[in-house]
């Protein structure tokens, strides 16, 4: 077939131009601005070298706390969401009345925007929990989201509620590919349920595990809307996650250059973890 260069560029141009203006150019400007004291107004900010990067790791306790808090949320979320996701997948794949309905219900929270979820759970934690606490005389249900611990647990509950169904669907897609003959063979060989799960189902479900981990890591690290709507980072920035910390540096403190430097570290973290995780789990996958 005759292939003209003109056609190639003509078809590529709309995507390439919008992508370049919206993503590539701001990205390059962003790298430069992370080495300046840009305030968002002055277009010729002074270059300050690595000062921004040194500052965030040596004298910004809120940033370091946000970093640790985000890591903690991510780790707990990743474990719970993937365990629940796989368990629910194996549960709804059995034949019983209502299995399909349950599948639909579990998946639904994932479609509702983070802001709406955050406000909804804010209502549950602050109003419903305290009403139940008063009715049953349970002290630990009162005053939720007013301290760091309940803020942390609140974010985790929200994440599990939102993401488990999504992980479940991904695990179901993988489990459906396991031929039933493999499990039957294990049964004939005398394997009990746990042995079958450990040695047959689990290794064969590893490819979905890669996706599940990758999604839950990047979702937890990038989380912003839920954090903003649920706790707003409070009390005293103690439940602030990285994305919200960057946002506040820019729009509350007007330190755009500093916020941009944090965003670069954020990029290195998110992209780095994602790539490493993808490489490691790809290696462990069992070839079907």
């Amino acid at each position: 077939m005759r292939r003209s260069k003109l056609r190639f560029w003509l078809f590529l141009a709309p995507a390439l131009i919008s992508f370049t203006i919206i993503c590539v150019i701001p990205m390059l400007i962003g790298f430069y601005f992370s080495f300046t004291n840009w305030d968002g107004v002055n277009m010729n900010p002074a270059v300050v070298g690595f000062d921004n990067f040194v500052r965030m790791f040596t004298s910004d306790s809120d940033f370091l706390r946000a970093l640790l808090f985000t890591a903690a949320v991510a780790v707990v979320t990743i474990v719970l969401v993937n365990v629940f996701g796989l368990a629910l997948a194996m549960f709804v794949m059995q034949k019983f009345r209502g299995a399909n309905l349950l599948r639909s219900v579990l998946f639904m929270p994932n479609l509702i925007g983070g802001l709406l979820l955050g406000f909804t759970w804010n209502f549950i934690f602050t109003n419903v929990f305290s009403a139940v606490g008063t009715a049953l005389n349970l002290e630990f249900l009162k005053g939720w989201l007013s301290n760091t611990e309940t803020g942390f647990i609140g974010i985790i509950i929200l994440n599990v509620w939102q993401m488990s169904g999504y992980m479940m669907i991904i695990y179901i897609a993988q489990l459906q590919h396991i031929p039933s003959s493999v499990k039957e063979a294990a049964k004939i060989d005398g394997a009990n349920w746990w042995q079958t799960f450990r040695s047959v189902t689990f290794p064969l479900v590893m490819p979905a595990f890669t996706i599940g981990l990758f999604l839950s890591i990047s979702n937890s690290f990038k989380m912003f809307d839920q954090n903003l709507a649920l706790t707003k980072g409070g009390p005293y920035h103690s439940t602030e996650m990285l994305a919200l910390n960057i946002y506040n540096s820019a729009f509350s403190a007007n330190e755009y250059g500093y916020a941009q430097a944090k965003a670069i570290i954020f990029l290195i973290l998110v992209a780095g973890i994602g790539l490493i995780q993808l490489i490691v789990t790809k290696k462990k996958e069992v070839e079907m």
Partner: protein
Amino acid sequence: MVSWSKTKKISINKKGRFKRLVLSIISLIIGLVFVFPIYILALNSFKTQKGLLVNLLGFPDAKTFSPNNYAEAFDKLKYLQSFCNSLYISICSVFMILLISTMAAWVLVRYKTKVSKVVFVVFALFMLVPFQCVMLPLMMVAKNMGLLNPVGLIFMYMGFGTSMSVLMIHGFIKNVPEELEEAAVIDGCNVFQLFFIIVVPLLRVILITVAILNTMWIWNDFLLPSIVINKPGWQTLPLMTYSFFGTYSTRWDLASAALVMCIAPIVAFYLFSQKYIVNGMTDGAIK
């Protein structure tokens, strides 16, 4: 012998039935736990402000029932306007993303040159970049180019959306045989006929997937519109929800009605196109 095997069969059936019943009950409990937050929210959206204080967990009664919450929240959210804004932004953005990404992905697959490989890798790599990383410089660029308006926002979604969309459509086109296109060219198709009449219909499955992924993202997006079009008259539903909570954070009677009204269209869309959404999100994750 015969009777023995019969009784055994029955007992297995009984056991199976019992097991299924237990599973159904467990599933009912799990389902109720998952639905509970939405249920209690919807329940309280029909109560007065005072009713929320005295009777949060029960059904609204004659004293606590308030039929006006929805009307008031509808008014305060400027619901019709914000809903239409959201719809307009989502539909235009998704349509444009699909159009330009399909065009790009098609030539990127069919031209096996070094340039096309490099361009593809750059598109793919950008999926790893968090939004916060380009947010501030983008605001500056957008200000200088006069993009801080709804049309500018659609253009931004085109830029951000291409990365994932090109990647997914690219993966699909790779498995579409080229012979059909060659035959069409021999029959005298020009390049636009070839693309719109021959290529695009073959991509229906992946285009639905990509459309759904982009719709869910853009409809629910808050941060980007909040810095681009946060002006009266332009606000989308998430923006109005946020500003509503800034003003009425203690009025849970109105706030719960507002939340239900914002969640309802998403649930309706889900019920309407559940199969496509679930398949789309699964495919989207796997690719």
